[in-house]
């Protein structure tokens, strides 16, 4: 089983993390996931078709089935939001609110 598949299995078994994703989470993700989420951060929002094109062009490319499994998982985790006001399926990252400085959100 590859790094991505292993990670996906582990995440499915992990409890939902409330509050969204932080950029610090990105540092620990497998390369293809990190690349896609970094691009989403940079673009603000992306359609499913745009994500699929990017996923296919990555060095560790994701198949359409792997991409759909990833998007479903990230939405369940609350790291990704599906936008209702755009035509087709569009996604954006749900970034966690920065808490008081000195707590867990500061390195």
């Amino acid at each position, binding site marked *: 089983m590859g790094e991505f598949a292993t990670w996906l299995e582990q995440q499915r078994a992990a409890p939902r993390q409330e509050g969204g994703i932080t950029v610090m989470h990105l540092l620990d993700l497998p390369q293809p996931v990190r690349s896609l989420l970094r691009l989403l951060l940079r673009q603000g929002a992306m359609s499913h078709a745009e994500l699929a094109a990017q996923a296919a062009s990555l060095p560790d490319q994701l198949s359409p089935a792997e991409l759909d499994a990833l998007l479903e998982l990230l939405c369940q985790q609350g790291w990704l939001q599906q936008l209702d006001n755009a035509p087709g399926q569009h996604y954006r990252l749900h970034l966690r609110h*920065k808490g008081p*400085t000195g707590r867990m959100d500061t390195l």
Partner: protein
Amino acid sequence: MSKIISVHSFRGGTGKSNTTANLTALFASQGLRVGVVDTDIQSPGIHILFGMDHDELEYSLNDYLWGRCAIEQAAYDVTANLGAEISGNIFLIPSSMKPGEITHVLREGYDVGLLNDGFHRLVEELSLDVLMIDTHPGLNEETLLSIAISDALVLILRPDQQDYQGTSVTVEVARKLDVPSLQLVVNKVPAAMDRAAVRARVEQTYASPVAAVLPHSDEMMMLASAGIFALRYPNHTVTQELQNIVAALS
């Protein structure tokens, strides 16, 4: 297409804000529309270099993050403040200098997604060619966000063992976040040091290009943030090195 450039240093006192302001002015001198955001919310100060009186600000980045205004309402065209012929425009988005508003951020935090949206909106609403982000030293959430969304990261360090070690941490993070262009800048190099040797050592240590090695400058110290060095001293060695950074980022 617009470009987002973050300027960062692992430790404070490296000349990060000063370098950001100078690069901003040099880009604008090329006729570009440049935005500069002070995300150093905990210890802001770049507005001083652009001749802004903080008491006259109606809105700051803090107001945007707390939903009191749109991000473009906190953007000020400071081009005319610089007292030089600049063919482009400079829009500054300052952070608040009010103690209560700084402690509010430390106490309550803010919506990081809103900050990210604000960067994108600034580029669109102000038709920016370049968005410069002046970050807080070290690594925190807004710094990582700035690095992650940037097309280029300028990392500033001094020829100092603590800076060398801290910079390696940031370089590693930048690589993990796939920043397309990483440019190192060595600042405040004493005259007694061989700048070419410093450049070679830093390039070898980090396996990244060094865009500039800026010598320590008494003129810079004497200016004391009372203006933009590159505009006051256009033929100075420091300015020539700053131009090298602009070329590396263009």
